[in-house]
C-alpha cells in the first residue's frame, strides 16, 4: 500500500460504517465553532436522546431530591458537630448518607420503603476562589520550607503546554483535543487561566468519569459480584456520589450503615460486595478508609504491627450483627408455589436449569441488609492466646481513638461508622487527604497510603496536618480539596526527572512522572477518535431491577417465575444497554469511555492489557509495561483506527490549510504541544518523501512514543 490516501480509500467502507453508526446518534463531527468537546453538564445525562419524556420526568424528580439532599446536608453538618461531642448523638446522623433514612428503630424492624432517588450533579463553588488561593499558597509555603531545609531546588514551572495536558489527564482522565489545547494557549497569560481551566475541568463529566475509575479500582466494583447478587445499582450510585460530590465522610458512613435492598439503598452494595465474607469486608474497610492493615490479625496476632487477634475480633463485633438476607422468609414464601412446581418437573435437566435460575432470582430478592440486635460474635474455635478462650463472647471495642459508648439500643453498625468516619478518628481524614494528595502528585505525603502503622511518619508533618485541617474545612468535598491541590505552584511545576528511591523521602519539588493508567490511555485514544466520547453514558439498571424484583407478599407460580427469568435474560441480551452498545461498537470494539464499560472487562481487552484491575484486589490496577502492551500499541485495532477517515485527528489534519498547520495539528492532538524545530523538520521530510502516507506514519510514530504514554 503506497499512500495513506489510497489506504483510506480502500478502507472507506469501514470508515463509513463508523461514520454512519455514530451519525445515527447525531454527534460524530465537532460542531463548527464549538470550542470544547463537551460542555460541563448540569446533571449526568441519563439516556442520551432516547427518551426525552423520561429524562424530563427524571429531572423534576432530581430537583426535588437535590432539595431534600441539601436539607439533609444542613441537618447533617450540625449532626457531625454533635456526634463529636455527644456520644448519644445516634439519632441525628441518620439524616445523612443516602438522605432517605428513617429513624433507626423503624429501620431495624422492617424494610425501608422509599426507593433511591438520584441526586443532582454539582459544581465547584465560585465563591470559594479566594479561599482556594489562600490554601494553595499555604501548601506552597510548607513545601518550600521543607525544600529549603533539605537543600532541594524546586522544579521549574510547567509551560502552558505541559500544564494543559497534565490538567486534562489528571482531572478528566484524557488528553485534551488540539482545539482545547489551542484555546487554552491562546488565552492571555495575564488572565487567571490556569485556575479557570481547573474549575472548568472539575465541573466536567470527564472528571466524574475519571474519579469513578479511581474509586472503582479501590472498591473493586463489579456489575455482578455473583450470579445471585446485583452490583449495578451500587455501581450507578458511586457515579452519582461523585457527580454530586457527596461529602466523603457521608459517603463512607452511608456504605457502612445502609440497610435494605440494593436498589432501594444502593450503598448496601458495599457490604454485599463481600457477601459471605464479613471479616474480609472489615479488613477491606479498615484498609481503604483508615489506611491500616489489620487483616493478618484475623487469624493470629499481627506479625509486623501491634494488632492482636483479640482486637480484630473486638472490632469485628461491631459489624457482626450485619445480616444480608433480611428478606429471606418473605421471599421464600413468595416463590414457594413456583419452587414446588419446579420440583415436580420430570425432565431432570430442565428441572435443574430452572431451579438454578429461579434460585438466583429469589436470592437476589432475599438480599437485604439489616442489623440483628442480639447477634454476638465469639472468638474462633482455635483461639490460641491467653487473653481469651475459644468460643468466648466478644464485646465490641475500637482499635484506636475514643471508644463509642454503647447502650442496649445503640445500633452497633452505626456506632462503628460514627467512629470510623468521624472527624476525631486519627486516621480517617488523614487517609483520604493523603490519598487525594497522591492522586495529584503521584506519591503520598505518607507512602504507601494504605499501610499506616504507629511508626508511619509523613515526609512533611506540617503539610500533612494542614491537609487534614483543609479536608475538614472543605467539609470533606473531594472536589474542593483537589481544586486546592491543583492550584498549588507545587503541582504546577515540572515533573521529577529521576528515579524515586523507596528509602528516601520525597519532598515534592514537583509531581512525579507517571505512566498513564489503562483508563487514561484508552480514553485518550478515544479523544483522538470521537468528537464526543462522553455522549454514551451507561444506562442505569432500572429495567433489570424491574425484571427481577419480587415484593414480599407476592405469590409467584411457575409461569410468573418464567416471566421473571425471561425478562432478566432479555434485559441482559437485548435491553437498552445491549442495544446502545451495538450502536457504539465499531468493528467489534465498543468505543465508549472506560467508566461506561462493563465491570470487570475480560482479560484480553485493551484496558486490561494496559493494567486495568480485574477487580479482585484493592487498587489492583497497575501501570507496569510489558511486551503485549507494546504489541497492542504497535498493531492493535485502536491505533490503526486513528489513521482512517472519520476520526477526529484525521479530519482535523485534513481540514488544516497548510502542511505546516497539519503538522502542528498532529503534534497538538497527540502530545498537546507544538513540534520543536527538529520535530518539524523530521515530520516535513517524512511527509514530503512519502506523500499522504507520511501523515499516517507520523501519527503512528507519535502514538508509540513514551512521551505519549507518560504524564510529565
Amino acid at each position, binding site marked *: 500500500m503506497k499512500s495513506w490516501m489510497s489506504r483510506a480509500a480502500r478502507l472507506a467502507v469501514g470508515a463509513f460504517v463508523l461514520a454512519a453508526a455514530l451519525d445515527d446518534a447525531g454527534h460524530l463531527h465537532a460542531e463548527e465553532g464549538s470550542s470544547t468537546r463537551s460542555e460541563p453538564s448540569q446533571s449526568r445525562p441519563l439516556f442520551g436522546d432516547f427518551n426525552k419524556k423520561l429524562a424530563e420526568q427524571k429531572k423534576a424528580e432530581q430537583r426535588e431530591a437535590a432539595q431534600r439532599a441539601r436539607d439533609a446536608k444542613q441537618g447533617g453538618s450540625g449532626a457531625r458537630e454533635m456526634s463529636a461531642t455527644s456520644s448519644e448523638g445516634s439519632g441525628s446522623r441518620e439524616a445523612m448518607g443516602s438522605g432517605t433514612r428513617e429513624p433507626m428503630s423503624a429501620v431495624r424492624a422492617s424494610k425501608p420503603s422509599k426507593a433511591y432517588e438520584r441526586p443532582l450533579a454539582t459544581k465547584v463553588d465560585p465563591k470559594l476562589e479566594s479561599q482556594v488561593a489562600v490554601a494553595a499558597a499555604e501548601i506552597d509555603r510548607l513545601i518550600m520550607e521543607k525544600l529549603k531545609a533539605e537543600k532541594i531546588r524546586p522544579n521549574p514551572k510547567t509551560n502552558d503546554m505541559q500544564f494543559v495536558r497534565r490538567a486534562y489527564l489528571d482531572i478528566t482522565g484524557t488528553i485534551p483535543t488540539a482545539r482545547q489545547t489551542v484555546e487554552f494557549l491562546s488565552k492571555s497569560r495575564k488572565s487567571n487561566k490556569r485556575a479557570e481551566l481547573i474549575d472548568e475541568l472539575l465541573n466536567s463529566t470527564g472528571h466524574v468519569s475519571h474519579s469513578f475509575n479511581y474509586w472503582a479500582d479501590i472498591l473493586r466494583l463489579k456489575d455482578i459480584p455473583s450470579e445471585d447478587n446485583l452490583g449495578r445499582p451500587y455501581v450507578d450510585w458511586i457515579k452519582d456520589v461523585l457527580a454530586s460530590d457527596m461529602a466523603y465522610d457521608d459517603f463512607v458512613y452511608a456504605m457502612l450503615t445502609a440497610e435494605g435492598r440494593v436498589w432501594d439503598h444502593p450503598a448496601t452494595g458495599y457490604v454485599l460486595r463481600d457477601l459471605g465474607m464479613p471479616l474480609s469486608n472489615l479488613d477491606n474497610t479498615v484498609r481503604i478508609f483508615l489506611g491500616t492493615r489489620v487483616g493478618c490479625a*484475623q*487469624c493470629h496476632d499481627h506479625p509486623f504491627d501491634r494488632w492482636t487477634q483479640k482486637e480484630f475480633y473486638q472490632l469485628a463485633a461491631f459489624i457482626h450483627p450485619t445480616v444480608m438476607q433480611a428478606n429471606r422468609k418473605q421471599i421464600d414464601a413468595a416463590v414457594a408455589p413456583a419452587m414446588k412446581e419446579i420440583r415436580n418437573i420430570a425432565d431432570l435437566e430442565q428441572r435443574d436449569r430452572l431451579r438454578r435460575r429461579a434460585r438466583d432470582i429469589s436470592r437476589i430478592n432475599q438480599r437485604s441488609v439489616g442489623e440483628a440486635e442480639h447477634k454476638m460474635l465469639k472468638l474462633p474455635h482455635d483461639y490460641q492466646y491467653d487473653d481469651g478462650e475459644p468460643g468466648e463472647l466478644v464485646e465490641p471495642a475500637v482499635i484506636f481513638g475514643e471508644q463509642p459508648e454503647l447502650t442496649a439500643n445503640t445500633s452497633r453498625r452505626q456506632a462503628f461508622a460514627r467512629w470510623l468516619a468521624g472527624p476525631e478518628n486519627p486516621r480517617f481524614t488523614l487517609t483520604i487527604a493523603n490519598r487525594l494528595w497522591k492522586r495529584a502528585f503521584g506519591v503520598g505525603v505518607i507512602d504507601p497510603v494504605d499501610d499506616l502503622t504507629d511508626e508511619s511518619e509523613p515526609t512533611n508533618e506540617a503539610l500533612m496536618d494542614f491537609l487534614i485541617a483543609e479536608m475538614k474545612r472543605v467539609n470533606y468535598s473531594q472536589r474542593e480539596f483537589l481544586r486546592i491541590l491543583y492550584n498549588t505552584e507545587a503541582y504546577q511545576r515540572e515533573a521529577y526527572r529521576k528515579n524515586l528511591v523507596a528509602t528516601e523521602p520525597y519532598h515534592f519539588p514537583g509531581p512525579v512522572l507517571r505512566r498513564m493508567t489503562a483508563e487514561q490511555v484508552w480514553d485518550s485514544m478515544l479523544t483522538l477518535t470521537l468528537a464526543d466520547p462522553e455522549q454514551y453514558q451507561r444506562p442505569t439498571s432500572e429495567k433489570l431491577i424491574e425484571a427481577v424484583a419480587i415484593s414480599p407478599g407476592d405469590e409467584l407460580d411457575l409461569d410468573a417465575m418464567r416471566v421473571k427469568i425471561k425478562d432478566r435474560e432479555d434485559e441482559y441480551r437485548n435491553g437498552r444497554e445491549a442495544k446502545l452498545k451495538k450502536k457504539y461498537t465499531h468493528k467489534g470494539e465498543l468505543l465508549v469511555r472506560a467508566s461506561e464499560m462493563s465491570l470487570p472487562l475480560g482479560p484480553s481487552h485493551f484496558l486490561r492489557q494496559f493494567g486495568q484491575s480485574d477487580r479482585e484486589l484493592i487498587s489492583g490496577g497497575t501501570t507496569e509495561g510489558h511486551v503485549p502492551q507494546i504489541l497492542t500499541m504497535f498493531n492493535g485495532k485502536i491505533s490503526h483506527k486513528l489513521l482512517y477517515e472519520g476520526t477526529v485527528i484525521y479530519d482535523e489534519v485534513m481540514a488544516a490549510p497548510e502542511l505546516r498547520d497539519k503538522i502542528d495539528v498532529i503534534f497538538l492532538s497527540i502530545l498537546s504541544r507544538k513540534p520543536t524545530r527538529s520535530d518539524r523538520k523530521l515530520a516535513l521530510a517524512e511527509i514530503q518523501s512519502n506523500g499522504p502516507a507520511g501523515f499516517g506514519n507520523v501519527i503512528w510514530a507519535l502514538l508509540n*512514543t*513514551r512521551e505519549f504514554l507518560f504524564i510529565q
Partner: protein
Amino acid sequence: MYDSDPTRRHFMSTVARNLLGVSFLPLVGNSAMAASKPRQNATQVIYLYMSGAMSQFETFDPKPGTETGGETQAIDTNVAGVKVSQYLPKLAKLADQLALVRSLSTETGAHGPGAYVMRTSYREIASTRHPSMGPWIQRLAGKGNPVLPGSVVIGGGSGHPGSGYLGAQFMPVPIGRARNGLQNSKPPEYLSEAQFDHRMQLADRFDRTFERKFATTEVEGYSKLYAEAIRLMRSDDLAVFDINKEPKKVREAYGNSGFGQGCLLARRLVQNGVKFVEVNLGSWDDHRTIYDSLPNRAAQFDLGMSTLLRDLKSQGMLDQTLVVVATEFGRTPKINQNAGRDHFPGAFSCVLAGGGINGGTVYGATDKLGKAVEKDPVSVGEFNATIAHAMGLPHDEEIYSPDGRPFTIGDGSAPLKALFS
C-alpha cells in the same frame, strides 16, 4: 528459530543497539548456557494454579464417611492404598505419576495475600513486591528461547505479583484466552516490514528529547520492551502461540474449557523453550453450595491435567517438564450453613508430577478429619524450593531487591528431597 536474514538482523541490531539503547545478542548466549544443563533436571515448569482456594476434601485429600467429608466419595487410584475424590477419575488412573503433597499449611486466609504467598514464597508487604515463580526461574536459569518470553501466564488476574522487583523485562506475558493466542503480534496487512521499521525509527527520533529528559528506570524499561516486542513479531516461533495448529483431535482431548485449551498452549510453549507457563483455573471459592458448583470445574481440571500428563509423556517430555498444581489455601473441614466450605489455611494439598519427581507418592498427611497436618508438614517456601530443586537451580541463591534486601526463591527453605530418587 531466529531469523538469519542478514539485512533484517542488521536492522534489528541497529534498532536494538543504536536506536533503543540495548543489545539483545547477549540473551542468545544466555540461552546456549541454559541448554547445556544436565538432562536429569527438569528444564521447564507448567504451573496449574487453582484460583480461589481449591477444596482438598473434594480433590486430593478426601475424608469420606466422616463428619467433615461432606458428600464426596473417595475412589481407588492405580497406586495401591492411595485414594482421591470421585471428581478426579482420570487423574486417579495416573496417580503413579503424581506426588500428592497433603500437608501444606500457611497462616494467610485471604485470597489476595494467600495467592501472593503461594506464588512468591513471601508475605505481601507494602514496601516491596516479590517476584513470582516464573520470573524467579527466568532470573536463575535465563530464557530457554531468546525470542519467546521467559514466562507466560494464561488466564491470570491482574493481582498477579508478576516480576515484582525484578522489573518489566522479567514480566510474564499474559495470555487472556488460550484460543486467541498472543494478541496483536502481527502488523496490519497493508504495512510491509520495511514500512514498520521506518515508523519505529521515526518514533524513536521523536521520542529522543523526552527520553533524555526523563532517564528513569521505568522510561528506560520501555526501550527494552520495544526491542523485545519487535523481536517477537519477527520470530517464526510466534506460531507456537496458535493452538489451532494442533490437530482437532488433540484440541478436543484437552476439553473445550479455557483451562483445557490453556494446558494445550502451555505444552506448545514449553516444547519451544518457554521456561515457565502458569495456567489458571478460577472460582474455586466455594463458600456456598459447593456440591452444585464444584463438580463441573473439577471435571475440567481432571480432563485438562490428565490429558496434559499423557500428552507430555507420549512426546517424551514428561521427565523434563515439572507439572505443579497449586492453590492459595484449602477449605474448612466444616460445611457451613450455606452448604459451602470457607477459607482454611491450616491444611491443604498441592501436587507435583513429571520433572524427575517420584510418582505414586503421598507426602505428608492430615488427621482423620482433615483439621490439621499430622505428618511431615510442608511450608510454601519448601514447596517452591522443591520446584527450583527439580530444575537443578540454586534454591538458596540470594537475589537483591533494589532497596538492598536479599530474597531467595523459597524464602530460605530447603527442598523436599524425599520426592526425588
